[in-house]
C-alpha cells in the first residue's frame, strides 16, 4: 500500500492531538467562568449605587437627587468593573 505507513500514522496522530488541543482551549472552564462574571458585575454596581443613593435621600430628605446622581455613578462603576475584568481576562 503506502510507502511509509509510519509517517501517515504519525500525521494522523499529530492531527488528532492538535484537534484535541483546540477543543480543550475552547472548553477551558476558567474562560466560561470569567464570561459568567461580566453580566452580574455590571448590574450589581448599578444596584449598589442606587441603594446608596436611596439611603442618602432617606437620611437627608433630598428626595430625587442623590438617587439620580448615584444611579449614574453606579453605571460608571459597573462599566469600570467590566473593563477591569475584561483586562484581567486578556492576561
Amino acid at each position, binding site marked *: 500500500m503506502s510507502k511509509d505507513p509510519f509517517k501517515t500514522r504519525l500525521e494522523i496522530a499529530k492531527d488528532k492531538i492538535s484537534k484535541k488541543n483546540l477543543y480543550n482551549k475552547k472548553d477551558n*472552564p*476558567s474562560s*466560561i*467562568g470569567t464570561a*459568567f*462574571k461580566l453580566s*452580574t*458585575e455590571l*448590574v*450589581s*454596581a448599578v*444596584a*449598589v*449605587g442606587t441603594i*446608596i443613593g436611596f439611603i442618602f435621600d432617606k437620611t437627608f430628605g433630598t428626595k430625587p437627587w442623590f438617587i439620580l446622581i*448615584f444611579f449614574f*455613578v*453606579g453605571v*460608571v*462603576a*459597573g462599566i*469600570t*468593573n467590566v473593563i477591569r475584568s475584561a483586562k*484581567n481576562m486578556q492576561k
Partner: protein
Amino acid sequence: MAANPMTQFNVYRIGPEIKLGAFDISFTNASLFMIISSLAILIIFNIGSKKNSLLPNKIQLLAELSYTFVSKMISDTAGLKAKPYFAFIFSLFMFVLFCNMFGMIPYTFTVTSHIIVTFVLAAFIFIGVTIVGFAKHGFGYLKLFVPSGVPAILLPLIVVIEVISYLSRPVSLSVRLFANMMAGHTMMKVFGGFVISLGIVGGWLPLSFSVALTGLEILVAFLQAYVFAILTCIYLNDALNLHH
C-alpha cells in the same frame, strides 16, 4: 409532584417550631440539606485521607484531586501569600459544590438557589477579605480606592466610583450563584412539565431537551462553585498584594 415550577424552592419546617426572641430558627429542609452536604464532605474526605496508600482507591483519588485542584487554583490566582487561607477556600468551594450537586438529584432541595444563603456566604467573604486587607496594610489598604496617576480634580469622583465597585462585589458574587442555580432549576421543571402536558405524542422533544438541560445544569453547578471560589481568590489577592 406539584405542577408549579417554583414550589421546588419552598422552605418548610421540619419538626417543632423553635423561636429565639423574634427570630424563627426552626429546622427547615434548607438546614437539612446543608447538613447533608456538610456531612457528605466530611465523610468523603475522612475516608479519603485515612489510608495513605501509594496506589489510591477511588475515594482517595477524589480527595487528592480536589486538593490539588484547589491548591493550584489558589497559587495561580492569589500567589503563595494566600496559602494560609487554603482551608477556608477549600471548604467554601466544597460546600458550594456539594450543595449544587445535591440539588441535581431529583426531589432534593437546592440550598444555593436562595439568595439569602449565597449572600451570607458572600458577605462573610467580603468582611473577611476587608479585615485581612486592613490587618496586612493598615490604613494603607484605603489606597485601593485611589488609583495612581489620576488628576486631583477627578479624584473625588473616582473614589466614589471605586467604593461603589468595591461594595458591589458581594452583591455580584451572591446574585451570580443564586440566579444561575434558580434559573436552571426552574427551566428544568418547566420542561419537565411540558413532557407531562404534551403526553406520549409530543412529549419526546421536551424530554430530550430536559436530558440536555440536566447535563448543562451539572456543568453549571460545578462552574458556579468554581467561579465562587476563584473570585474569592481574586479578592483575597487584591487584599494581600496591594497594587494599583
